């Protein structure tokens, strides 16, 4: 039914756009749960699950009891689902989408014979062609000779029919679970010494890193959960400056956090997880000095980032903007790589930049004399102006005063300063001809 029709029937209809990603995630978690009924569970389309329950039903007291149990649990969870048990994958698929139920062993043809042919997972055109010749139910097809059927409607139909009736094998292809990077250790006696915890951590790290290596992943964050005997938990989490799976180097970063843990009456369980991972291809270790230097630098960034915060360990990256403040980016070093800086000819730029500081007692353009930071300066030489206009597509509060004329002012006292004036803001205040002294600011210092 189209949405417009539905709204015409029921004006108060509440509608929400489909969130396919979250639906798929919900189905995936349901698939994990369905593992309690069968070792092999696969998603079946976007709205179904397929489980191979061979050898399982007697654990639940028979197929009917298993299905009742499944339905009851889903019902309790608030999910409306239909389930079917049949000897083949195709038959179960067909029956589950048309009422559900159980097809007894050896009675496949009778069990699904009454279903329409669309239940056979055939495409729309084939189903329409079948309907046109009067073949509406699966039972109508089973007695027909296969060769003419295949010639007329394609081999796909015959394949699906064979699969539903068990003439053609079709296994349940359960996709592998996403690897879960977590290891744990339970101790018979509680421990309390820092060295003991570090020893336990070393063993866990070895296992975790082996698992990471098997999946070619590297950890970006590693979390250690310590369970005390009084059921309290302590948690130590570290970040890494780049994906890593070297047990010794990760263990060093835990030392400070483990030192601060209150062990109470003792710790009897450790759990180590890597919540954030990234792909990390196998690489040469202990090779040339370059690799060792890179590793050591990453270790430094990790340890500093864990103490002062990764957002305070920065790197300068070039940006495409003429605005001085936005001509470079301060990016966290752990999440960026150094970029080559394009060498740009043109007007020299200061080595040090700060937010604009107004100068006082400025006289003339450029000012012959001015005061800045309680110091008196006399201009020896001024180069400029270099006009920089604000980027109109950004609303930057600092640039609301309009365009700026930058001057490089060499002072008699020594410092070479980067001054600017905002002619537009002055014009707005005093009319077209500026009467009062212009607003001068210092924004940088040259070498």
């Amino acid at each position, binding site marked *: 039914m189209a949405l417009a029709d539905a709204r015409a029937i029921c004006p108060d209809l509440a509608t929400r756009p489909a969130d396919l990603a979250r639906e798929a995630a919900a189905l995936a978690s349901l698939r994990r749960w369905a593992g309690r009924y069968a070792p092999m569970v696969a998603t079946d389309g976007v709205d179904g699950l397929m489980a191979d329950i061979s050898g399982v039903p007697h654990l639940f007291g028979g197929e009917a009891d298993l299905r009742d149990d499944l339905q009851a649990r889903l019902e309790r969870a608030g999910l409306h689902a239909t389930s079917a048990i049949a000897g083949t994958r195709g038959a179960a698929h067909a029956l589950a989408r048309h009422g559900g139920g159980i097809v007894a062993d050896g009675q496949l043809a009778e069990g699904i014979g009454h279903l329409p042919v669309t239940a056979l997972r055939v495409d729309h055109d084939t189903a329409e062609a079948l309907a046109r010749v009067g073949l509406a139910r699966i039972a109508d097809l089973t007695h027909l000779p296969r060769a003419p059927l295949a010639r007329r409607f394609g081999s796909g139909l015959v394949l699906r029919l064979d699969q539903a009736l068990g003439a053609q094998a079709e296994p349940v292809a359960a996709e592998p679970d996403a690897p879960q990077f977590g290891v744990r250790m339970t101790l018979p006696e509680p421990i309390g010494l820092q060295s003991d915890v570090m020893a336990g951590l070393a063993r866990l790290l070895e296992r975790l890193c082996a698992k990471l290596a098997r999946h070619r992943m590297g950890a970006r964050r590693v979390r250690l959960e310590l369970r005390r005997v009084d059921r309290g938990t302590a948690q130590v989490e570290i970040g890494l400056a780049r994906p890593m799976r070297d047990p010794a180097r990760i263990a060093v970063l835990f030392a400070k956090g483990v030192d601060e843990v209150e062990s109470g009456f003792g710790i009897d369980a450790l759990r180590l997880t890597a919540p954030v991972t990234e792909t990390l291809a196998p690489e040469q270790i202990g090779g040339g000095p370059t690799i060792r230097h890179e590793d050591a630098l990453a270790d430094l960034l990790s340890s500093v980032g864990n103490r002062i915060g990764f957002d305070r360990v920065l790197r300068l990256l070039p940006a495409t903007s003429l605005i001085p403040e936005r001509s470079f980016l301060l990016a966290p070093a752990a999440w960026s790589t150094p970029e080559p800086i394009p060498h740009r000819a043109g007007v020299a730029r200061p*080595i040090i930049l700060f937010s604009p500081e107004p100068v006082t007692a400025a006289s003339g353009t450029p000012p012959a004399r001015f005061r800045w930071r309680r110091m008196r300066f006399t201009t020896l030489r001024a180069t400029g102006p270099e006009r920089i206009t604000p980027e109109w597509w950004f609303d930057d509060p600092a640039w609301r005063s309009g365009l700026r004329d930058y001057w490089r002012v060499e002072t008699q006292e020594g410092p*070479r300063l980067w001054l600017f004036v905002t002619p537009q803001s002055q014009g707005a205040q005093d009319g077209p001809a500026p009467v009062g002294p212009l607003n001068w600011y210092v924004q940088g210092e040259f*070498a």
Partner: protein
Amino acid sequence: MRSDLRMQTGPTDLFDLRPRRVHEAEGRGRRAFALFQAERHPGPLVWILPAYVPELPMLRGLPRGVGERLHLFRPVGETDLLWCIEEALRAAPVSLVIAEPEKPMSLTAGRRLQLAAEAGRTTGLMLIREGAGSNATETRWKCEPVASTAADSTLHQWDLNKNKKGTSGSWVLNWNGASAAVHMVSEARQRHEPAGTAR
């Protein structure tokens, strides 16, 4: 003796910081001096400045090849700052650590940094306020920009006030902030100065 040998190798070697030691620079031109040294140290650079300091290095104005290698640490608080300096000095791959401590460093802190620099084979340069130096420093430079009469020269006066293993000195030179090369302005002046220029 050692400084005499170094004198003979060339004029720019005068400004080589002794490796594996921590040095200090003060004055208005200390950041320019730091960048001059940064260019002469190949390898990763670390600049540690407290989070409240508004003065940031501007990428486009830095000497060539410095911006890519530069790492900026911005810790909050003096303890974290000192910890960062020590950690960076201890890291072997870092070639030069530039730091701006806010308070005068105690002898203990200065000595610890010297030990860290020795352990990590790293050179350190503290950009200090006037007179806020530590006694443990290897050399102390006073750097001031100097006004010049010629249009395209950027003069600096770099005074070596304290030197544990050599003599002090005072130089006026022309460094434009882009290349590693400097031009000494007045060699004669340096020769005729009395031995104990400052302090």
